[in-house]
């Protein structure tokens, strides 16, 4: 099983990276909470977050941009259930509606930036028009870069912010779901019961592209 293990300085317990769970030591069995993030081009992240700060090497080392693996999957695990999505397939389709266990989720990917966002499909917040009926379950279709449309109300949602921006549910947010970026074989190691959605878009593995300006 190929993945990093970590140790904490306080108890010296050992943690498995993919599970976020301590596997040895005083905290064995303890689980850290997985949080969402973006894996996006710098220009995209900066445009979305103009006030962002950046972490640099505190020792003053400078690293050059490196090759970026292309052939990865998005793994979503909620409690004991897991689903996996090939980014290449998501890019072609733009959006994927799925169930992780009994939790309905939607996975949206910007085909240009490869920015992936996952949300629950059964929990939307209150729209600006509080009298608008909010469906108990949504099914989404692609509506352009960073945009998905629900078939129930026709509302258009901005996936970069998880927010309804046009239509009867305008102003309603979606609950974001965190995910893990991984290679498919590694994900299968640690989440052996996981379902896989789509297929790899690359013939040679691991595929890489060189970052150029």
């Amino acid at each position, binding site marked *: 099983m190929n993945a990093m293990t970590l140790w904490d300085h306080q108890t010296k317990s050992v943690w498995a990276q993919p599970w976020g769970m301590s596997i040895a030591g005083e905290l064995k069995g303890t689980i850290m909470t997985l949080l969402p993030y973006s*894996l996006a081009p710098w220009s995209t992240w900066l445009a979305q977050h103009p006030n962002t700060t950046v972490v640099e090497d505190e020792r003053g080392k400078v690293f050059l941009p490196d090759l970026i693996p292309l052939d990865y999957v998005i793994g979503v695990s909620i409690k004991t259930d897991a689903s996996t999505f090939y980014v290449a397939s998501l890019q072609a389709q733009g959006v994927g509606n799925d169930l992780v266990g009994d939790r309905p989720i939607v996975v949206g990917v910007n085909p240009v930036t490869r920015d992936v966002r996952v949300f629950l499909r059964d929990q939307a917040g209150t729209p600006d028009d509080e009298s608008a009926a909010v469906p108990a379950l949504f099914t989404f279709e692609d509506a352009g870069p960073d945009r998905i449309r629900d078939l129930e109300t026709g509302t258009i949602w901005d996936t970069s912010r998880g*927010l309804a921006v046009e239509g009867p549910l305008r102003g309603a947010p979606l609950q974001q779901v965190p995910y893990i970026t991984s290679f498919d074989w590694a994900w299968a190691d640690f989440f052996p019961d996981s379902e896989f959605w789509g297929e790899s878009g690359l013939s040679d593995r691991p595929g890489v592209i060189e970052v150029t300006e």
Partner: protein
Amino acid sequence: MTFSPSKEVMFLYLALRNLPRLPISVGIIGLIAVACGSAAGEADVNRPHPILAAEYTAAFEALTPSGARTIDADRYRDATDVDNIAPIYEPLIVAASNVDLLPAELVIGVEIDGEARAYPHRLMQFREMANDVVGGVPVLVSW
């Protein structure tokens, strides 16, 4: 104690470092979805998604992998020495205007409670772990 490699696997893990010791309440997923400042009826759809630290932690606790796990001991092996890879303990945080990143290069972006932080892939590729606090929430960024 064994510590195995991350070069063969690309995992990205962002986790609350000290959650097990925090008195976090559960079941407020809906609250993270509550929009703020929309009483006037005409909402500003350009406002950032409202994410507050307290709501944040509780919301994602219910959306985290858990359950019994089995480790295949035959496939668990040493690959490098302990602390062979130097984690980031005290991040050097700089303004976006002071960095020289290519537009196309990847960053790991985190936003909590209005604070946004980017961890360049070129940095995390070598450092692999960053202990940080974003939006008041102690986090571990792991690559």
